[in-house]
């Protein structure tokens, strides 16, 4: 085997252009598998994360939410927005049959001005009634959020003094949350006391988000948990019928509309990946078959020298293994250089929840892509080996093929 390795090395090193072309082809194959799979997995992961973070059965927002930036654009794209309704709607929703609990949330957009450290979405919640935010805040911060304290999404850079300034009021950053792959990564979370102080600050700074309404008596959305045994759809319908000027949407519907988009994007990316992969394999097989055809005389010579079929297959296998391994490592490396540093750009372009899988899955994908490319190389070498097993040594050498 050592000699076959040497022969393979000589052949590859003394035909650098052909070797480089084959390596590039193998790299293309593994790049498409790795990058395509990473994007599809990240989208699926992002959706799961989004679903779990939403944490409510029904989300109730004012009709104006459509014109002032929808909840989806806040949650998914992290576009700071705001919409408000009177807090009396909270009691009206609570009064609907089938509602187990309802908790208000308040959305305040910080400004791109000197009064604020960063322009972000600030989300306020009521610690006494909240059931959708606190469970996953607990994963990063086990104590109750005090007045003036904030927790930030993973996408926000925390200053050294751990203080962010919003509307000229300092907020202490007590924790950073895990990444979600959604707009929530660039949001800041605070309790209602803190956010009301910020609201007052915004008015002092001259920002009128509330259209004359009393900020102390306004909320942005209501998260609703439905009682066990009740139909979420019926409760949402009841809210829409009995509470005017608001829109109740099932969280499942919000997720499924994203899931629909995600499925389409995943299908396109998956289809493209499969197509590129199949194309690369076909090209790789054709290239190897053409090369083995071109090398028929060489194989005939080696057969005459005493090489067995197995030895020639070994020679082809070494060459294919080397090409596909080097190509696969190269492809995966380029894939990693594209997928990891540009993940924010990809997320932005896809406009969908995008959360990269954990290191174990990434490692598995890296190894899997390399193994797949090497397997494809082995397949091509097996096909080439079958072809050369049928050569008529005497005829080829006599004809000088």
């Amino acid at each position, binding site marked *: 085997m050592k*000699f076959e390795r040497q*022969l393979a090395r*000589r*052949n590859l090193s*003394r*035909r650098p252009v052909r070797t480089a072309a084959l390596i590039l082809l193998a790299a293309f194959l593994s790049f498409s598998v790795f990058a395509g799979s990473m994007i599809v997995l990240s989208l699926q992961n992002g959706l799961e994360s989004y679903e779990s973070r939403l944490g409510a059965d029904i989300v109730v927002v004012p009709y104006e939410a459509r014109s002032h930036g929808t909840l989806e654009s806040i949650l998914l794209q992290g576009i700071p927005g705001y919409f408000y309704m009177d807090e009396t709607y909270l009691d009206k929703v609570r009064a609907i049959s089938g509602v187990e609990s309802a908790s208000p949330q308040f959305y305040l957009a910080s400004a791109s001005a000197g009064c604020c450290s960063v322009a972000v979405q600030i989300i306020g919640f009521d610690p006494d009634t909240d059931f959708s935010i606190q469970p996953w805040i607990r994963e990063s911060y086990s104590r109750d959020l005090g007045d003036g304290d904030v927790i930030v999404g993973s996408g926000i850079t925390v200053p050294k003094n751990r203080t962010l300034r919003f509307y000229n009021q300092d907020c202490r950053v007590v924790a950073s949350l895990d990444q979600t792959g959604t707009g929530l990564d660039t949001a800041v979370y605070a309790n209602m006391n803190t956010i009301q102080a910020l609201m007052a600050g915004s008015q002092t700074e001259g920002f009128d988000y509330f259209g004359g309404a009393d900020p102390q008596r306004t909320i942005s959305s209501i998260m609703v948990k439905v009682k066990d045994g009740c139909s979420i759809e019926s409760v949402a319908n009841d809210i829409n019928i009995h509470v005017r000027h608001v829109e109740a949407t099932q969280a499942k519907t919000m997720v499924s509309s994203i899931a629909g988009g995600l499925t389409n994007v995943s299908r396109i990316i998956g289809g493209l990946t499969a197509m590129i992969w199949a194309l690369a394999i076909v090209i790789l097989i054709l290239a190897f078959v053409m090369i083995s055809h071109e090398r028929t*005389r*060489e194989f*005939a*010579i*080696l*057969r*005459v*020298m*005493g*090489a*067995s079929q197995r*030895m020639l297959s070994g020679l082809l296998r070494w060459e294919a293994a080397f090409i596909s391994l080097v190509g696969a490592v190269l492809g995966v490396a380029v894939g990693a250089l594209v997928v990891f540093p540009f993940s924010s750009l990809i997320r932005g372009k896809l406009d969908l929840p995008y959360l990269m899988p954990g290191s174990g899955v990434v490692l598995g994908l890296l190894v899997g892509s390399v193994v797949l490319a090497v397997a494809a190389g082995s397949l091509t070498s097996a096909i080439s080996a079958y072809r050369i097993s049928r050569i008529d*040594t*005497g*005829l080829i*050498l*006599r004809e*000088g093929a």
Partner: protein
Amino acid sequence: MSLLELKSISKIYGDLHALDNVSLKVEKGEWVAIMGPSGSGKSTMMNIIGCMDKPTSGQVLLDGVDISKESDRNLTAIRRDKIGLIFQQFHLVNYLTALENVMVAQYYHSVPDEAEAMEALRRVGLADRAKHLPSQLSGGEQQRVCIARALINYPELILADEPTGNLDEANENIVLEIFRQLHAEGTTLVVVTHDPEVGEVAQRTVVLEYGKITREIHNESFEAKTAPALAEARN
């Protein structure tokens, strides 16, 4: 015992009798030229003797062993161990140097030995071209590498197919001189050629026509010229 004996061999392709009941004996140390026009059956005979094809009928005894019914795998082993092949078109592996081409034959026979391969190249006058690729060698030099490769495993039979067919006169003379030396050392040579000048320098010329041996010519001048040298070499 003859080194090579063809016993009534025939090779039939459909209606064509490429070889028709041919019998031939080649003694150890003999130099035989097989001549004939195109389509006479030279190539078929070369392929059968070189273990690259099997006869339709008849026996081929190489060193007393009937190889006409052997499997492809055994034929590969017999060719590797007993026969050194020289081709008109040299058939060197183009990405290997002259030295590596010789060592390939060593590897498939036993163990590559660079010093021994170098000595084989020195013997054909190519020690200084050992590191050159075939594309960097002239036709005559490539043929000499091919001869060095055929000799490296000390085969009992050298089978040459039109060995001077692609060479100019100067290189043809060099190759024939190497053959003379090999013969003087006791190597058995079977040379397939259509060139009368190459045929004439052999000890015996067998003429093939339409798949049959029509004539055998014993070159008397060969005996006169080489007998003393041969005797000296064998002593």
